[in-house]
């Protein structure tokens, strides 16, 4: 088990810099998820840790060793790939034992380690099949088995679930979490799916355009996003954003709608701001959770509904912008119906209109 440190790590392809001097400290046994939209540099960062990409600048340390110039095999890591990357000409048993065979372990040791890994991942009945005869979920389990059989210091997961269907993905997510609890090893996990990030991570690292935007626990990044990007990226549905101007104790939006200023933000009179509110905090009266001291009420016409069973998502227009609201204990709603919504101002956010940075005190 080991800590991982990234110090001013840069990745350049020719003149093009894709990862800009990022810093990250990962504790021993921590489950860290790198999340961001495609092209944000998260996979590249992971591959630099793995040794599959050269490091253009800065330093990567694994377990206190600088590994910049070490090939993957000397870094004591193992990796699970998006496309499983199994060896198609080998049986599951051979796939699992391959790294041990390369490390010249005795056949008895290999068998023992393979049986143990197969047991953990319930692959025992499949050991003599080839990858071609396995389903997607089974292949992914083999790929994970191949990673755990070596007891590496750090596990790297590169979007391991994105090729699986939704149901299987949820199942495997639970299995990965269980695996981490059992092995207690350091895991770096890359995904573009914020749900995966939220559910799996001890800490989430949100990346955009080769920069780290925010690092924090799932609840921390959900409740205190440092900017509008994190606010809209984490959480589903994405946070509603409305542009307005501070007028005394109120926010005025383009069409003249006014709302009280949420508490806890450093703002000046006349400042242009972006107001952020999640669907969970804007609910029709009578279908909401009573919470928070600071509330506001607005009336909106509902354009569209998305019933989800326990709740219904309502699409309405507030100050000229489409916003999503949540309705608990739903009743059927007609399109065009006008409803009164309450906004929990304690849970709302204010961002600088220009930079998008949070204005929280």
């Amino acid at each position, binding site marked *: 088990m080991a800590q991982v440190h990234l110090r001013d790590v840069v990745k350049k392809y020719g003149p093009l810099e894709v990862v800009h001097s990022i810093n990250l400290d990962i504790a021993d046994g921590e489950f860290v998820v790198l999340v961001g939209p495609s092209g944000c540099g998260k996979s590249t960062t992971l591959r630099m840790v793995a*040794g*599959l990409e050269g490091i253009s600048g800065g330093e990567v340390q694994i377990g206190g060793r600088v590994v910049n110039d070490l090939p*993957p095999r000397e870094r004591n890591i193992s990796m699970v*790939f998006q496309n*499983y990357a199994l060896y198609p*000409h080998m049986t599951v048993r051979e796939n699992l034992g*391959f790294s041990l065979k390369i490390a010249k372990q005795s056949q008895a040791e290999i068998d023992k380690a393979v049986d143990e890994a197969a047991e953990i991942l319930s692959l025992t009945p499949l050991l003599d099949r080839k*990858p*071609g005869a396995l389903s997607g979920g089974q292949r992914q389990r083999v790929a994970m088995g*191949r990673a755990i059989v070596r007891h590496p210091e750090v596990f790297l997961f590169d979007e391991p679930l994105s090729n699986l269907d939704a149901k299987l993905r949820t199942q495997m997510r639970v299995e990965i979490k269980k695996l981490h609890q059992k092995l207690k090893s350091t895991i770096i996990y890359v995904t573009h799916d914020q749900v995966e990030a939220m559910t799996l991570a001890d800490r989430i690292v949100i990346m955009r355009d080769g920069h780290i935007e925010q690092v924090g626990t799932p609840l921390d990044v959900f409740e205190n996003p440092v900017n509008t990007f994190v606010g809209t990226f984490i959480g589903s549905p994405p946070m509603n954003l409305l542009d307005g101007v501070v007028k005394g104790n109120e926010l005025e939006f383009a069409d003249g709608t006014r709302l009280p200023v949420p508490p806890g933000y450093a703002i000046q009179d006349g400042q242009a701001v972006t107001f952020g509110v999640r669907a969970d905090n804007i609910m029709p009266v009578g279908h909401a959770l009573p919470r928070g001291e600071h509330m506001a009420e607005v009336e909106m016409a509902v354009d569209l509904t998305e019933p989800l069973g326990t709740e219904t998502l309502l699409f309405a227009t507030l100050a000229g912008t489409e916003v999503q609201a949540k309705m608990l204990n739903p009743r059927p709603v007609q399109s065009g119906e006008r409803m009164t919504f309450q906004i929990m101002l304690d849970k709302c956010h204010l961002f600088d209109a220009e930079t998008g940075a949070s204005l929280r005190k």
Partner: protein
Amino acid sequence: MNRLKLPPWLVLLLPAIIILSAVVLIPLVLSLYSSFTSYRLTRPDSIFNWVGFFNYEKALTDVKFWAAFGRTVLLLTVALNLEMLFGLGLALMVSKVTQGQRLLRTMMMFPMMFSPILVGFQFKFIFNDNVGLVNNALQSLGITDQAIPWLVDGQLAMFSIIFAEIWTATSVFGILILAGLYAIPRDPLEAAKVDGCTAWQSFRYVTLPFLMPFIYIAMAIRSLDVARAYDIVQIMTNGGPARRTELLWTLIGRTGYVDARMGYANAMGYISIFLAIFFTIYFFKKLTQSRKELGMGA
């Protein structure tokens, strides 16, 4: 007028039947028939002289025939294996080139663009003991002061022929293996790196199994080619010296057209076909097997 009425399907198929008979069926039947006669080109009516299996018995007990048969198998084995090794090396090197790869790929194909007859003449000149390039170079460099009889000495002549064969056809392997290299998914290779493989181990355990189907396709194509080798040998040594480079088809060609004993030549031809068929089946079996290994195909 009472015209013969043919069923429409037959009328529609007739052109195909006529063409196939003319180009395939009639020659095949005629040659098979003539292998059971003492047919000589110089005496056309000898084609009606039925001798049963005499020609086949003669061929199967003829030392010269079996020597040529053995030499063909030797050429096939040596040339194919060396071509495979060189082609593999060439493909691996070209695949690593980042700039000008297209140009290199085209250049790789150059040897295949020449007629084997011209290649034969070219190597006949290169290996000529008096004016040839090789001897000239060796003598100028002081490596030897004698003229090495490349095409006159029996063993050296076989070597020279194999050399020419390899020069012309290594690119067949090169191109097909290169195609195989392009088709290899990147992930398993990266997984192998993470699993601790050195470059050689990655090649041995991951790259090579992926390349085997491509290698067997090249082998199948080239085994047919080499099993009917004629032109290069005919030009370079004419089967000589003293029949030491006589291959199946130079022997058959000589028997049929020089000695005019076409019936006997056809009998040897039919026996030789089995060699080609054997190798083709063998390599296709290997191909299917290696594809199955990779989980491809049914």
